[in-house]
């Protein structure tokens, strides 16, 4: 017995059977293998780049691009640099993602609640929508909206129109553009004031309810404030706003805001397709609230609308938010399918840059960094939001 134990009383084990040392060995082997692999890849890449006469580095970003981009939020021309082209693409990615996320959330919540409706037909229609749209690839939906729905629309001369100010044709949707004159900033000031006032009202109302139990119609007051204050601001300076209407010039429209068909197809496909996933999360979230909660709320005498708003939704949101966050992330990543129909997002613009310069590693690196940071930012924000919404227990 004494032969196998040392002074401290620890059993003496051979280094092979000591988990700590074994783990160390495994990790060292892993690191060495990884280092060899990385060394090989770097050597091969350098050799390949040399033989193809490509110089690595980000110098190409400042060179003139020489290609046009059909939609850009910041001034851009074919004389602008490659870097600016990528930036335009990045802004377009942000635009399509933000707009589609809002639409997909609305569609998803409506359909998720419809699916739980007591009305048999309504519930079935929501199920039909979900089963049809989520079982067909997104890329196919983008093509369907692009070439089977938007392409057959009439040309600009026979465009569908509402009040001669909105025109829908195979060149896209044309909308009037607001032009602000002098003193329009007062409207903006009114809007900011309204926001501050709303926050104060909400705080005051909550304090009063906690003290006295009396409620205050916060929602209606806020709506009145947000609409009223900017209007008053505008009225003070005599409504310095006029609209630039789209007008048919030759074969296309001029003036106004043009929503290109690529944007519309991508927007429709992304929001309707992603809406199915949000609808399923919403349904799962509502189903996760136990029936006893609803019954107890009804027994307390709350009306059905208030049961939903005050009891079911706050509890369901805790279940809905985490999957919602990952759905938003995948929507942002899916917006890269824009490249298939030529909407100039980050991947499409980067693809053109890649083809022209051959700087594959740099362009792919930029893509990865941008998407990774978008992912991290979104998940960080959602984690913070989730922590705020979490059930605080004793």
């Amino acid at each position, binding site marked *: 017995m004494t032969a196998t134990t040392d002074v401290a009383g620890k059993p003496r084990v051979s280094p092979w059977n000591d988990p700590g040392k074994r783990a160390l060995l495994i990790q060292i082997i892993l690191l060495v293998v990884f280092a060899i692999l990385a060394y090989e890849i770097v050597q091969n890449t350098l050799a390949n780049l040399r033989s193809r006469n490509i110089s690595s580095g980000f110098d190409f970003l400042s060179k003139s691009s020489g290609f046009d981009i059909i939609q850009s939020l910041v001034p851009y021309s074919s004389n602008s640099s490659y870097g600016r082209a990528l930036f335009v693409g990045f802004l377009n990615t942000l635009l399509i993602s933000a707009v589609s996320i809002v639409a997909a959330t609305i569609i998803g919540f409506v359909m998720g609640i419809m699916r739980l*409706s007591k009305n048999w037909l309504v519930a079935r229609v929501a199920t039909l929508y979900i089963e*049809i749209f989520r079982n067909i690839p997104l890329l196919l939906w983008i093509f369907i909206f692009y070439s089977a729905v938007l392409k057959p629309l009439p040309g600009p001369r026979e465009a569908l129109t509402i009040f001669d100010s909105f025109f829908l044709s195979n060149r896209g949707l044309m909308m009037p553009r607001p032009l602000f004159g002098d003193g329009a900033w007062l409207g903006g000031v009114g809007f900011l004031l309204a926001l501050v006032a709303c926050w104060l009202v909400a705080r005051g109302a909550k304090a009063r309810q906690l003290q006295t139990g009396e409620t205050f119609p916060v929602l209606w007051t806020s709506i009145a404030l947000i609409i009223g204050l900017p209007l008053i601001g505008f009225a003070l300076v005599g409504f310095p706003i006029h609209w630039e209407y789209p007008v048919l010039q030759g074969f296309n429209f001029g003036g106004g805001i043009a929503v290109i068909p690529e944007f519309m197809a991508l927007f429709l496909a992304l929001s309707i397709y992603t809406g199915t996933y949000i609808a399923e999360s919403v349904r799962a979230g509502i189903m996760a609230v136990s029936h006893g909660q609803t019954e107890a709320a009804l027994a307390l005498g709350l009306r059905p609308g208030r049961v939903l708003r005050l009891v079911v939704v706050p509890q369901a949101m805790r279940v809905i938010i985490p999957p919602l966050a990952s759905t938003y992330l995948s929507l942002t990543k899916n917006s890269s399918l824009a490249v298939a129909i030529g909407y100039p997002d980050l991947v499409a613009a980067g*693809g053109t840059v890649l083809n022209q310069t051959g700087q594959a590693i740099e362009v792919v690196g930029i*893509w990865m960094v941008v998407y990774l940071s978008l992912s991290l930012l979104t998940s960080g924000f959602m984690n913070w939001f989730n922590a705020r919404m979490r059930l605080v227990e004793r």
Partner: protein
Amino acid sequence: MAADPANLAYVRTEEAPLLPPPANEAGVRGWLIKNLFSSPLNSLLTILVGAFLIWLIWDTVKWGLFDAVWTGENREACTGEGVGACWPLIWDKFPQWMYGFYPIDQRWRPNLVFLIGGAALIPMLIPSVGGKLWNAMFLLIFFPLITIILLSGGHVNFLAQTYAAVIALLLLAAVIVPIAAFGLEDGLQRNRPGIILAAAALLVWLGGFLVDTPSISIGFARVNALPFFSMLLAFLAGVVSLKVALADNSGAGRSALKGWALIAGGLLLAMLLLDIDFGLEPVETSQWGGLLVTLVVAVTGIVASLPIGILLALGRRSKMPVVRMFSIVFIEIWRGVPLITVLFMSSVMLPLFLPEGVNFDKLLRALVGVALFSSAYMAEVVRAGLQAIPRGQYEGAQALGLSYWQMMAKIILPQALKISIPNIVGNFISLFKDTTLVSIIGIFDLLGIVQAGLRDANWASAASAPTGYFTVALIFWVFCFGMSRYSMFIERRLATGHKR
């Protein structure tokens, strides 16, 4: 003590006749009132939604059946006002959608692959059919081999060096046979010469990277000196280790040896089979296309992602910091970027990473990208399953003296994978849908070939795009919907009453 029931006038002697249920509660009328017209708002919704549904169905039926063109040779048949679906387009293009540009006289080969795959898959999917182990082995080992040989024509023409390298690696791996048989400590002690030889082989091989050595002549060929010596050392190490395992009279040595022989023999047999010229005409992967490529990409992604994903998930939960860090970085990078950038990367960057002159096929590059991408997602699914297993299961397994791999393989993973099945199938479905993205990098999968077919001037008409997309959407829908229903069926079957 009870009173005589016969004398009590008010006790019924027979059951009262059953009254019919209230008219508002029963029958078609009751159902309608309860489910469709329970309140004015509900009635309004029913009417609106019903009208929309009727309009939608009527329009689709009118487009697909009444206004449709059923016969024709080219676009002439489908031009004109108010024409619905252009079905002759489908009759004309359908073979191409299935096989792509696969040579027409060779199409029996993909057909045979579909047939064998279906015949092996169906008994696998029906729970009551036995022999699941053999069935799975066939599907995972022999079927891929058959598929490669049939579709590409086999006859890979391995070099003699490749055979030598594989045999050397297998013999090097034989060093662990005594360890597997007698345990770590005893195995190391008995096989000291083998271990030393193997370490020397590895060192010499690594040295080959650092210094350039002259090539030497070995009678029939000229080889580089250091790799050649390392190969010789590996041969020796393997032979010595196998001798140690054989020398033992207990069954342990022999059974470990048998396992090694099975793996080594199987690998060499597979190489030989790929090498043999079966007289099949070689078909380049650029000629493959349509549903064939979609299935090849999806099935490869599915089969490769499960083992890699499980390893990554275990790595992410490992206590070793280096292993954990590698797993986290790998998983988060793939999950953070869109698949299309991964595909671009595999098509433009992967060739840069490989030594000059080494060039592999476009389809294979896309397959590598898809497999790595989906294994990162699979890893997270498996990790969620692992986290759901109570700690007591781990502790119980450890208390029984199981090693890490025994604990994982026998206790944890079977439970974790079972509860992850719905998510795994969900992952499969999204992978199947994501395969359409390979069309963007110029591989003609089902969607890619349909897109190409719609550009055909012979069939250019307003009706062709809706018809083509409708049909391909239907094909995808059948696959995805089928998979999701099957997963629900399996989920119900596997539910063993742990849920409240």
